[in-house]
């Protein structure tokens, strides 16, 4: 067991967005969270990341309560997160964007280089973008960069918010290949990928959850 979300309730400006959701992300498994826009996918990931106040419920990583910790404590614990809207730093080059978590965590140069090389090996497209300003890459390329940035710290958990949303078909294919390589290489990570359409991720999903109006139905595959 890796990351456990238990009975999580979140309100945004008085409106209940998550109504007591529970699920578990296992190491080496990919959990796909399917739901329409506004169902609560992004809110789920942001709540795990500590970016939203939580009304009730718990999130724990290997038994360690996460919600008591400040948001910036997630990255050092090995949780990588790629937001749906990419959120690159426009003033930074692509490489500097990818290295941001390494800078934040003050990684040793050798460690930083090892992780960057590993990330470039998994997503070769990033190396060609390397020197481009973060503000100049296309939306799809930005998704790749955001994935690379999340990978810099994602030793235990990788949260990807709608990675295929708005991706051109060629880039979607590249992204899917990168994910496959990632799953083959990094077997200890617990993956969660959100998506609005169930078809895109059927080949990578080990478990599929459905979220609707803030409620996760079906639970885990074992539960069904």
């Amino acid at each position, binding site marked *: 067991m890796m990351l456990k979300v238990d009975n999580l309730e979140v309100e945004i400006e008085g409106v209940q967005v998550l109504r007591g959701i529970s699920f578990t992300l296992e190491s080496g498994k990919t959990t796909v969270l399917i739901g329409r826009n506004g169902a609560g996918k992004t809110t789920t990931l942001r709540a795990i990341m500590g970016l939203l106040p939580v009304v009730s419920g718990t999130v724990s990583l290997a038994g360690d309560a996460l919600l008591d910790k*400040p*948001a*910036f404590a997630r990255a050092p614990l090995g949780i990588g997160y790629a937001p749906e809207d990419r959120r690159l730093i426009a*003033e930074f080059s692509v490489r*500097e964007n990818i290295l*941001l978590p390494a800078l934040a965590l003050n990684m040793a140069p050798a460690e930083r280089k090892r992780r960057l090389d590993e990330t470039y090996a998994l997503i070769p497209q990033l190396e060609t973008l390397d020197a481009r300003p973060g503000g100049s890459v296309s939306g799809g390329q930005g998704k790749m960069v955001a994935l690379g940035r999340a990978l810099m*710290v994602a030793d235990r958990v990788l949260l990807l918010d709608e990675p295929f949303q708005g991706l051109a078909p060629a880039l979607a294919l590249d992204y899917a290949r990168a994910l496959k390589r990632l799953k083959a290489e990094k077997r200890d990570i617990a993956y969660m990928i959100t998506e609005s359409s169930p078809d895109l991720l059927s080949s990578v999903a080990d478990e599929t959850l459905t979220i609707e109006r803030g409620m996760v139905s079906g639970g885990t595959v074992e539960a069904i």
Partner: protein
Amino acid sequence: MLDMALPLIMDALANAALIFFVAVGLTLVFSVQRILNVAHGSFYSIGAYIAASMGLWLISAGLNPWLSFPALLLSAALVAMVLGPLVERTLIRWTYGRHEAIQILVTFGLFLILEDLQRLVFGVRSIYQDTPMALLGVSEIGGIFYLNYQLLLIVLALAVLFGMRFLIKHTRLGRLLVAVVADREVSLAMGINTDRAFVLAFTLGVFLAALGGALATPTTGVAPGLGAETMVLAFAVAAIGGLGQIEGAAVASIIVAGAKVLAVYYAPAFDTVAPFLVMLAVLLVRPNGLFGTATTRKI
């Protein structure tokens, strides 16, 4: 007319240097915290009072007068280390993300408290302590005498300008600050302790203001009202240069000081309003300041 030009330029640049220290701190805090700190000028006057008091004490204790130079720096550092974290953690942090009106009211309240505290501690009399200026003496260029201390102010302002540029472009702290300015939420998710970044940026802002005040004491002395006076000039600089622009603050400081000094030379009755007339003219043509844009925010 022409032989007036060089002293005028020197006066303007030395004045600009002092305003720049305050304005660059104001603009830094605005960039990182997105808060316009009305009390920023108080840090300038507190820096001035501490520096003047420390200078007077050095002399009365019979210590080497050259120690008054490190004392200027030490006063600014002291003010920053005590007041920076204290004010940011207890007061300013509660205003992040709130409406501008609340931020202005809270920081204006802080300004009033700090002004009264200064009267309480340092009294209402003016304090003069010009040892550093006297020690440096004068230089003669083309038959006109210049205060070497003024030259020092200009050099120090340039050092701060390039130091800030270096900090932002080439240091870990600077890069993390750029990330926090651009996207606070992503910065948190990537592991940046944004609270600490805020304390550091605010403390650095306090330090720069206090340094300006400390460096100003040998030239002008300290009296009640100094904080308010400086604050308004720093706001004029921020408005002209565009808030959040360090190079803009440098150029705008020269414009504001230039307007003031020109008025002092040729129309002394207008020396207080001249900077604001220039500000009005700039804002009529460019509402976001000379270097500001409506959408991007930089440090």
